[in-house]
């Protein structure tokens, strides 16, 4: 145990603290323009950092660490001024009901972030932006903000920087050196779909090429949490199968960590204001499909079984649909391997590992033993055979 006097001496004697070098007084108070804070926070409404939806509180978004802990991020635009013409976006230059234009300065934004971090309102920063008049200038501002956070304020928290379409290679490199994660928004699954929703973005040069730059730089620069991307779902007439094919390419060739899906919602004043909104269940089914590939390691040919004749995912659990098509007979949890166990609805990777660990100690004889391991027995029971007895009502297994 250490005395308070010793602690005070050490604290007073420090040359550095999280506020920067040789600070002996508090930083200048930040005058909070609440209108700006609200506008730029609201502007990131459709920038996704979690699959579980966003907080109602503007500027705060919740994400999850790899160990499942929920964390809060300060999510904001640097500026809501944008020269692009994306038909779904309220910041677009062709939006007839544009909000008032605001912008931070790098110092202002860095100080605000550090203040929120020290008070434990947030654990990190999610920084996006409109492209302004020149995306190079705006990228420089985003990087300057991150540089101030890391070097001047010794901020060690999470930073997620958006790479703007068309950003230069050197800017991408600098952004990666300062960030925990970066992302480039795909928005659409192909160039032709992109042309339908944005007249000013070149899909191959502005977006895909930037993602390739990030991938190429990973070896030399490193990026702790990798790169991610996101798509707007339903702004164009793309099918879920087309989205799936694009995402497969992203995971395999560009090695992204995650993809996010944002159901299209028409905004007043935009070119797509009169379009039908996409149901949220479509976004939910895409996330389920994504998890089957990324976490459960289903083969793409297995996932194909979940699409209907139009190439879309119906409003039904894709894993259950695939299981109904592909599982040949009841699965015995006492002998099935991991691959077969995770293909049973209601059994995920964690409960599959627990089943395998438990059966090394004792035989599984009852459904409630599976329930205690985290198995959702109601979903799994029709596909299981336990102790020779099976619950299945699946017609094609009746003989």
């Amino acid at each position, binding site marked *: 145990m250490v005395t308070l*006097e010793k602690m005070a001496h050490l*604290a007073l004697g420090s040359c550095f*603290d*999280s506020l920067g070098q040789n600070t002996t007084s508090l930083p200048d108070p930040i005058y909070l323009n609440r209108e700006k804070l609200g506008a730029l926070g609201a502007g990131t409404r459709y920038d996704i950092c979690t699959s579980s939806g966003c907080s109602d509180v503007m500027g705060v978004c919740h994400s999850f660490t790899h160990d499942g*802990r929920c*964390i809060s991020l300060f999510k904001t635009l640097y500026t809501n001024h944008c020269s692009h013409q994306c038909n779904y976006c309220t910041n677009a230059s062709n939006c007839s009901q544009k909000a008032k234009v605001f912008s931070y300065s790098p110092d202002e934004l860095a100080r605000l972030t550090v203040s929120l971090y020290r*008070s434990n309102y947030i654990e990190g920063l999610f920084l996006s932006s409109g492209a302004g008049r020149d995306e190079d200038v705006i990228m420089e501002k985003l990087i300057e903000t991150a540089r101030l956070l890391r070097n001047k304020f010794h901020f060690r*928290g999470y930073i997620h920087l958006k790479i703007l379409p068309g950003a230069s290679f050197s800017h991408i490199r600098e952004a990666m050196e300062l960030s925990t994660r970066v992302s480039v928004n795909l928005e659409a699954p192909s160039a032709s779909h992109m042309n339908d929703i944005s007249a000013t973005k070149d899909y191959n040069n502005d977006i895909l090429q930037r993602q390739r730059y990030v991938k190429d730089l990973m070896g030399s620069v490193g990026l702790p949490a990798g790169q991610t991307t996101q798509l707007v779902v339903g702004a164009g007439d793309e099918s879920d199968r087309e989205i799936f094919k694009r995402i497969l390419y992203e995971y395999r060739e560009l090695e992204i960590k995650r993809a996010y899906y944002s159901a299209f919602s028409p905004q007043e004043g935009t070119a797509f204001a009169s379009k039908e909104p996409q149901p949220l269940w479509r976004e939910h089914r895409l996330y389920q499909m994504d998890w089957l590939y990324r976490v459960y390691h289903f083969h793409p040919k297995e996932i194909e079984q979940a699409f209907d004749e139009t190439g879309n995912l119906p409003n039904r659990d894709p894993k259950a649909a695939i299981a109904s098509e592909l599982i040949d007979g009841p699965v015995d949890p006492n002998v099935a391997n991991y691959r077969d166990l995770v293909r049973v609805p209601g059994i995920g990777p964690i409960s599959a590992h627990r089943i395998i660990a438990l059966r090394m100690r004792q035989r599984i004889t009852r459904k409630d033993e599976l329930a205690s391991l985290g198995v959702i027995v109601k979903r799994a029971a029709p596909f299981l055979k336990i102790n020779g007895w099976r619950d299945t009502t699946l017609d094609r297994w009746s003989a």
Partner: protein
Amino acid sequence: MHESCSEPQLCRAEKLTTEDVELSPDPEDVGIRKMISSVLAEIYRMRAFVRLKPLDNQVLYGYLKPRHKTGDDICRFFARRSPFTIIVLGNSLESWISLCAGGRVLQDNSCGSLEQTLDEISSVLGRVEKDRDLEEVWKVYYSS
């Protein structure tokens, strides 16, 4: 540690492996599993919900009233996040102080209430007290 963890339970828990904790159907082991979940859940919640206010640029303080014996752990967590800043957490009965300096976390557990501890720190540091509103700190904690 869990608020109602007994010595026999502690001894038993020390002998369990991670697999035992996750899988054992023994009622005593199931009870320990629930205790562990409860403590971990509280640590996760407190790390997210505690709000800190600056006393000055060297001290951050906040309201904390954990159900289990987790005050030390939570205080250490914030100390590591803000090196060379004294972190003081507490309530009307007890408080915890931590400081991360030179990569090590120092703690003083001989503390009274949050109010008393902040008074002591203010006198040790020779600081003029700014407007300290513990009631407001509690309200921010509660609403978060």
